[in-house]
Every structure is written in C-alpha cells, then in structure tokens.
C-alpha cells in the first residue's frame, strides 16, 4: 500500500471536528433563520411564534408546516424602505468597489514593480493597517472629518474654503471610510497576480512598438483579470452588508440593508422580518458568493 493511501484515512478523521463544528455553528443557524423568517411576530420572549415544536409529535409538525407564512417576505417586497435599502446597498457597493479598483490598481502595480526585497516590505506595510481594528480606523476618520477636525482646519488655513465644510454624515465620508477599510482587500489579490506576471511579456510588447498605455491595456490588464475578479468580489460582497461604516460616517436619511436589518432586529425587535431580510440579502449575494468560491477553488488548484 502506498504511503499516500495510508494518509487518506487520518485526513478524514482530521475533518471530523471542523466538519461537525461548521455544521453546528454555520449551517444549522441558517435553518433557524429560515424557520423564523417564516413565522409570525409575537409580543413575547422570543418575539416570534414558535413554528416547530418537536416535542408535540408528527401531527403538530404537519400542522406547523401548514401554518408557515410568507407574510414577512411579502412585507419586504412591498415596503419601499426595504426595496430602497437593497438598491442603495448595491449602488454603494458598486461605486465603492469601482473606486477601490481605481485606487488599488496603481498601488498594487507599483508594488509589483519594486525590487524583490522591497516588495516584501511593501506587502507588510499594506497588511499592517488591516490588522489594526477597523473601528479604530473609522474613528480616526471621524477625528479628521468632523466640523472642527483636521481636514477643515487645513482647508481653512490654506484659504481654500471660507467656512468649515460639512464632511461627517455625508456619503463622501462614507465612501472615504469604505475605501479606506477595504483597500488592503483590493490591493493584495491584485498584487498577487501582477507580481507573478512575466515582465518579458510587457517588454516584448513595447519592443514591438506599443506605446505604454497600449502595453497596459492589451497585455498587463487582461493578464491581471483573475486578481481583479478576486479583489472585486472580496470587496463587493461584504460592502453590500456593511453596517458600521455607514452608521458612523453616513447621514441617516437613507439606510443600507445592513443597518435596516440591525434596526429591525435590535430596535423594533421584529425578528421574523429581520430574518426574512437576511435571507433576501443572502439570495442577492448568492451569485457573487458562488463566483468567489469558484475563483478561490481554481486558484488553489493552480497552485
């Protein structure tokens, strides 16, 4: 028997603990979300009518199935507040991801062209802020953007504005916060593909007479598409459900879906509607999530 064969079995044993853990604490909870999204609101603790009562036997379960209701989903589909929240989340995520790509690409490109020694240093420098608490980083921006904050002081001192500009509680502040927090997630996958790229290809293109923009657009960019895809998905998916950044930096006139869900859950205590909103959000994100999973698997197989 080859050594490889013997090794298969312990690996399967190794899978048991993580498998059980993920089923218990990742998969099963979604069952509960689904279940509660189909139940009615109640003024009690917990604030919903129990749907399944396993102690009551089979007939009770059948009756419970009959009592399942899609009311919460109908409510979400007909409520402008929710529809706008989903649309706003998607718009914000798309805009922010485009900004991240525009800002992150030149940085990743610059990193990939550094001498090898310096590339490692630059990578550490990009990762370090990611290790620093994102709440702290958002808070740092509040310091800068508030009414008598640093930004307004500098602008006033330079006589660029005559009165303090309102930055906090605007979409501009929110985009600054999102781009700032997610930049490492965009730079790292881009850098990974750009650094692997054969410099000879670019040199060949320019030797054959292509101007720099053509070299970039016809050679470099197409070759970096896997990194672009990974970076875009890695940023887009979590931004759609973002809660903290819009809550602290954006105004309160239009909410993203993460905030709406949070409010419904903690303030209105309507758990069934909050669960339904979460399920709809998950369905909206399913396509990008599956894309991400495929991309991830292909990259692992390439290695």
């Amino acid at each position: 028997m080859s050594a490889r064969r013997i090794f298969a079995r312990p690996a399967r044993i190794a899978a048991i603990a993580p498998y059980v853990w993920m089923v218990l604490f990742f998969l099963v909870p979604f069952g509960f979300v689904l279940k509660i999204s189909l139940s009615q609101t109640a003024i009690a603790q917990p604030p919903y009518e129990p749907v399944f009562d396993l102690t009551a036997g089979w007939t009770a379960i059948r009756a419970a199935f009959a009592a399942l209701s899609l009311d919460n989903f109908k409510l979400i589909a007909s409520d402008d507040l929710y529809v706008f929240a989903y649309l706003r989340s998607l718009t914000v995520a798309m805009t922010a991801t485009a900004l991240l790509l525009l800002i992150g690409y030149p940085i990743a490109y610059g990193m990939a062209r550094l001498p090898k020694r310096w590339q490692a240093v630059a990578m550490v420098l990009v990762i370090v802020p990611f290790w620093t608490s994102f709440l702290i980083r958002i808070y740092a921006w509040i310091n800068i953007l508030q009414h008598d904050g640093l930004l307004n002081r500098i602008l006033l001192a330079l006589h660029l504005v005559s009165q303090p500009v309102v930055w906090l509680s605007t979409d501009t502040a929110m985009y600054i916060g999102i781009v700032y927090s997610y930049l490492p997630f965009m730079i790292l996958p881009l850098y990974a593909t750009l650094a692997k790229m054969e410099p000879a290809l670019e040199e060949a293109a320019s030797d054959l007479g292509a101007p720099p923009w053509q070299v970039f657009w016809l050679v470099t960019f197409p070759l970096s598409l896997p990194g672009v895809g990974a970076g875009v998905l890695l940023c887009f998916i979590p931004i759609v459900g973002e809660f903290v950044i819009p809550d602290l930096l954006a105004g309160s006139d239009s909410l993203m879906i993460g905030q709406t869900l949070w409010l419904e859950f903690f303030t209105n205590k309507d758990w069934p509607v909050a669960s339904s909103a979460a399920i709809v959000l998950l369905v909206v994100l399913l396509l990008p999530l599956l894309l991400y999973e495929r991309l991830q698997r292909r990259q692992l197989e390439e290695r």
Partner: protein
Amino acid sequence: MRKASRLSRFNIASLALGLAFLYLPILILVIYSFNASRLVTVWGGWSLRWYHEFFNDRAMIEASWMSLRVAVTSATIATLIGTLAAVALSRGERFRGRTLFSGMLYAPLVMPEVISGLSLLLLFVALNAERGFWTVTIAHTTLTMCFVAVVVQSRLGSFDRSLEEAAMDLGCDPVRAFLSVTLPLIAPAIVAGWMLAFTLSLDDLVIASFTTGPGSATLPIRIYSEVRLGVKPEINAICTLVIGLIAVVIVIASLASKLSSSQGESAAPL
C-alpha cells in the same frame, strides 16, 4: 533594444500616496491621544491624561478584559480546529461532503457579518443558551477558524510532501509522521493563523453585538457606543493602546514567518 523601465515615477508616486492614505489617519490618532486638551482637535501640549482616565474607567477595563479572554480562547480553539480543517482539505483524498465542507469554510470569509451574527443569535436563542462569554467565543471561533484554515492550507500546499512520505517509509505511522515532520514545518503558519484569529476577534463588533448578553460587552461594543455619542479624547488613548498591542502581535507573527523563510520555505502569506 529599448527596455521597458521597471519602476516609473508614476509607480513611486502612487505607492507613496497609497501608503500615506493608509497611515496618516492612524498616526494622527496616536498623536492626539497624547493631547492634554479636552477638545479633541485643539492641541494643548503632551500629556498622559487620557490614559489615566482609561485606567480609572471600570467599564472600559472590564470590557477590555472580556475582549482579551474571548480573543485568546477563540483563537486557540480556532487554531486547533482550523488546522485540522486545513490538513483534511490538503491531505484528504476525496471524501463524502468535501465540496460542502470547503464551501462552509470559505463562505464566512466573505459573508456579511450581520448575517452570520443574526443566524448565530437565533441558534443560541433556540437552544436557550445563556448569552455571554461562551456564545461570543463560539461565534468568533466559527468565523476565525476559516481564516486559520486558509493560512495553514496555503502553507501545507507549498511544502514538499515527500518528506512526510519518507518518514512513513522509515516506519513512522501517519500520525507520528505528521507530528514530527509536518507540524514543525507548518508551525509558523499556525502561529500566524493564531495571531490573525486573535486580532480578528479583538476587532469584531457586529458578531459580538449579536451574540453577547447584557453585562458582558466587549471592548469594540463599548468603543462603538461611546463613539456614537461623539468624539471623546479617552477613546484616542484606548485606540492607541489597542494599536500598540496589535503592533506587538505583528512583530511576533513576522518573526515567526522570518523563522520559516530561514528554513528555506517561502513565508506564509499573512
């Protein structure tokens, strides 16, 4: 023959601007934490006043202690289980449910935190579990073990498997071969995974808010509720302390990965 220049002025400028964008806000925050003035934006000279305030703030100290305990416990469990998951994924031949398994491991990496938090809370409520230290710890373990699995797996994928097979040919059983050959080689990645899990747990606000109970707030929950009420100089001091702690963690992690590269293997990605 004209060579395409490797590093243009544009490259250097974009790098410099990018790094400035990433670091200036944090630097400003650290400087202002030593500000003597009550007004956050008016400079009143150097002072440790806000650090004193923090160390006399019982609620903040308790929240910090809670955060540290949760981070250490969940990072340790996550490292154990996450490493097992990485081994299973990179060493296991096909087993039933492997696709589901890897899907479950990758999904939490990108899933919006509100969804993960909400679903775990509903589970804990359904199980009638008392919410507090353990529910937060379980929630953080679930999230961070996925990051540990990715870090360790990329390390396992990059080293020479024949070393393991040689050990087994020399009479080691698989478990001993793993413990005496594989484990020392992937140890730096495991250390890096633990560090990552630790900082992620220390940092998390959303999932902790969903899964904690009354009276057991973590530090981010406390900071968040203070920040919502407006900027307080004390927060600058707390943030600087957290940044300092994380800086120490990064130094240890980078030492660990330096150790691994001096063994002739490429460093772990994080």
